[in-house]
């Protein structure tokens, strides 16, 4: 299939030379040089914000580099310069990209998504039959099976990723870029993906595998290029290096370790007794759920995204109501229904989507810090906001939570992701809530910010809060949680002491196995 690729000089199929990209004052990529040879799996390693995604977006034509050049080997020719800033030129040159956030039109069928853009726009009719034949043989060769007439919105995350890979193969890609492809998969799905990639590479496909997870990188790649603060700091073969070395190269300093000291759980803060939340289907609702959260305790909730975590989070945030069972909050039966009730009851809520739910980007920092508190008599009198008081409060939180911004009157959307998360953290934790819901609190942050968020959560636990931590990052869950549970299709498993579970076991449970079976299979 893709083996027809005839490598350029020394087998190089892709060469980046001196790529530099600035966003305002930030240098996202600084004079990057990179070579990729045929049939090679190259890992691009770096922490969040190191510039990996930017680099690949330049290669794929989403961004325009400020300096530098991209050369791609044609199927029958040597290295040719690639037209910058044009995804269609990249596609035509045989570059395929699987974005971290899938680029699929949900309302269209799988076949439509794959065919999109592959035919001349003015062709009077689509050639659907030929396409189906070609896809059948591709699916056989790559070992990827998906229904072609299914609408994408009904597919699971793993299936969508397969569609994304097929999209690239259908266009005869010779270079496949995968941006953090394992973030949303179970460990077993990751294994399957790796098998597929090895198989494709053996047929001559070159793969760029972007990740910040060391274990995976060592597992899948032939060669590792490490990116830090926009620069390449190392380029070495995967054999002969180890995690510790890679980790230090990636972060540039020893990684502070987060340690959770054992604590005796206190009174029950939240008790769910066969609580059910209706959803549009089994994946989005919450089936009858039992859960008890105590003081000084962090319960981690694992699971592939879209298995009911949103319903659980929504319930505790006050965004959705349960239609069966009983929910007890701080010992009292909670009727709920609105976020306001939860806010006033003293529940701290860190939303999954910082920019959509967490802050109003167009408003100023002090206003965002006031969003949950403006009703307090401290901040308003007869409906008039006490400006001085509110801004002084904002200055306190900015200092207390180390929010890097020009001041309380800065426009929030211009802050970095890490600082926006600190802002939300400050707003929530400054109220000293007894119960905290933290939904993906460290996603997309760089190592420093991640450590900061983790420390703050552990501090809250020490002072007596109980925390429900929803995350897709199993390492994070195992580091922070006292007990973990797994969500699968709206069902929350019983919680298990963190010390007694393994990653492999969690993975099997995330794929739908019951705890006991998973324990046996994992052993």
């Amino acid at each position, binding site marked *: 299939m893709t083996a027809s690729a005839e490598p350029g000089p020394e087998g190089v199929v892709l060469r980046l030379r001196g790529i530099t990209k600035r966003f305002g004052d930030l240098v996202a990529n600084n004079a990057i040089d990179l070579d990729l040879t045929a049939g090679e799996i190259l890992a691009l390693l770096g922490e969040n914000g190191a510039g990996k995604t930017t680099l690949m977006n330049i290669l794929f034509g989403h961004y325009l580099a400020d300096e530098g050049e991209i050369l791609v080997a044609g199927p029958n020719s040597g290295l040719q310069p690639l037209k910058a800033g044009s995804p*269609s030129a990249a596609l035509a040159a045989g570059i395929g990209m699987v974005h971290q956030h899938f*680029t699929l039109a949900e*309302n*269209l069928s799988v076949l439509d998504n794959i065919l999109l*853009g592959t035919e001349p726009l*003015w062709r009077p*009719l689509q050639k659907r039959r030929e396409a189906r034949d070609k896809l059948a043989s591709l699916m056989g060769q790559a070992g990827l099976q998906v229904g072609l007439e299914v609408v994408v919105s009904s597919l699971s995350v793993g299936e969508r990723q397969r569609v994304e890979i097929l999209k690239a193969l259908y266009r005869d890609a010779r270079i496949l870029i995968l941006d953090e492809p394992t973030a949303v998969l179970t460990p077993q799905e990751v294994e399957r993906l790796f098998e597929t990639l090895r198989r494709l590479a053996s047929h001559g496909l070159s793969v760029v595998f972007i990740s910040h997870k060391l274990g995976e990188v060592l597992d899948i790649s032939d060669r590792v290029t490490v990116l830090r603060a926009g620069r390449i700091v190392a380029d070495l073969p995967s054999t002969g290096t180890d995690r510790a070395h890679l980790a230090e190269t990636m972060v540039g300093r020893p990684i502070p370790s987060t340690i959770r000291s054992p604590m005796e759980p206190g009174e029950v803060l939240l008790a769910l007794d066969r609580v059910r939340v209706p959803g549009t289907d089994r994946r989005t609702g919450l089936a009858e759920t039992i859960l008890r959260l105590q003081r000084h305790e962090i319960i981690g909730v694992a699971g592939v995204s879209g298995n009911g975590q949103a319903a659980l989070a929504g319930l505790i945030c006050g965004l959705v109501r349960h239609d069966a069972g009983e929910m007890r909050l701080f010992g009292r039966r909670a009727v709920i229904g609105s976020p306001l009730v939860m806010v006033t009851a003293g529940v701290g809520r860190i939303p999954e989507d910082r920019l959509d739910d967490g802050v109003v980007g167009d408003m100023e920092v002090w206003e965002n810090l006031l969003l949950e508190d403006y009703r307090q008599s401290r901040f308003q009198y007869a409906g008039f906001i006490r400006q001085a008081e509110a801004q002084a409060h904002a200055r306190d939180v900015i200092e207390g939570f180390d929010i890097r911004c020009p001041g309380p009157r800065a426009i929030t959307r211009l802050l970095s992701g890490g600082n926006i998360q600190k802002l939300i953290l400050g707003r929530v934790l400054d109220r000293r809530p007894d119960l905290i819901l933290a939904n993906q609190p460290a996603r997309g942050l760089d190592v420093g910010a991640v450590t900061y968020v983790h420390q703050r959560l552990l501090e809250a636990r020490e002072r007596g809060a109980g925390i429900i931590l929803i995350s897709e990052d199993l390492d994070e869950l195992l580091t922070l949680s006292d007990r973990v549970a797994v969500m699968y299709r709206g069902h929350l498993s019983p919680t298990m002491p963190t010390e007694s579970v393994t990653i492999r076991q969690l993975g099997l449970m995330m794929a739908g196995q019951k705890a006991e079976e998973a324990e046996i299979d994992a052993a």
Partner: protein
Amino acid sequence: MGELLDILLTASFWAAAVRIATPLVFGTLGELICERAGVLNLGIEGIMTAGAMAGWMAVYQGADLWTGVVFAAIVGMIFGLLHGLLTVPLGLSQHVTGLGITLLATSLTYFTYRMILPDVPSPPRIEPFQPLEIPLLSDLPLLGPALFGQTALTYLAFGAVILVAFVLYKTPLGLALRSVGENPAAAEAQGIDVYRMRIGAVMAGSALMAIGGAFLTMSAFNAFFFEMVAGRGWICIALVVFASWRPGKALLGALLFGAFDALQVRLQQVIGGVPYQVFLMLPYMLSILALIVMSRRAGYPRALMVPYRKGER
């Protein structure tokens, strides 16, 4: 009840229904194309006004009827281009820009009319499109004259429905157009130029709107009057929702609306004692009602009214 039946059984009623529906078919199709590509076009009311004047004025200045239609379409495309440039690459509010286009197109139309015809007391008339009776078929009882005794522009509207439906669902172009309205990032990742697609769709849609306007001055009537579009553009926007963004249903919606409007005119003469304004209100109320009924089920394009910016972080 008997009177209602009498009305429903006259061929002239059905012919009027189709006639009233024709500009709405053009307008609704035009708006549908824009919205399928993700751009709300509130310029429709003004673009229809501009098209009405442009086509008629061209004929009055000596062009033949079809040249007038083409001229109207070009005028529509120019306003569509303006709307597209402002809302697509520049990402300006589609609501406000659209209203701005309507205000601009309307005022430019009136200004131009006064410039060319400064002193006429009443608008001069032209020789409009004549009914084109299709032999045999137009002799069918009841629906014959309605469907086969119309002017060429009405047949063009029917043809446009079929063409738009075919392009949308059967061709690569239609797939690309739908994809930029569903998920522009996905379209761009597949090499589709989102800006070009969206601007092109708005221009094509605006051309249809303008032809809808031209139907008023070149087929339904034979002259241009101020405020003659009278909210038809807004009704088309309601019809797009009613049609769940599907061309076939858009035709159906426009025909239902036309039938209702034709009925209301005839009922005025039958039912006494009710002020005529009540009847004139009914079409607008029906549009609101249609929106209410359909709003829950609407399968709207996911990226409608969401500006897309290349490479925005």
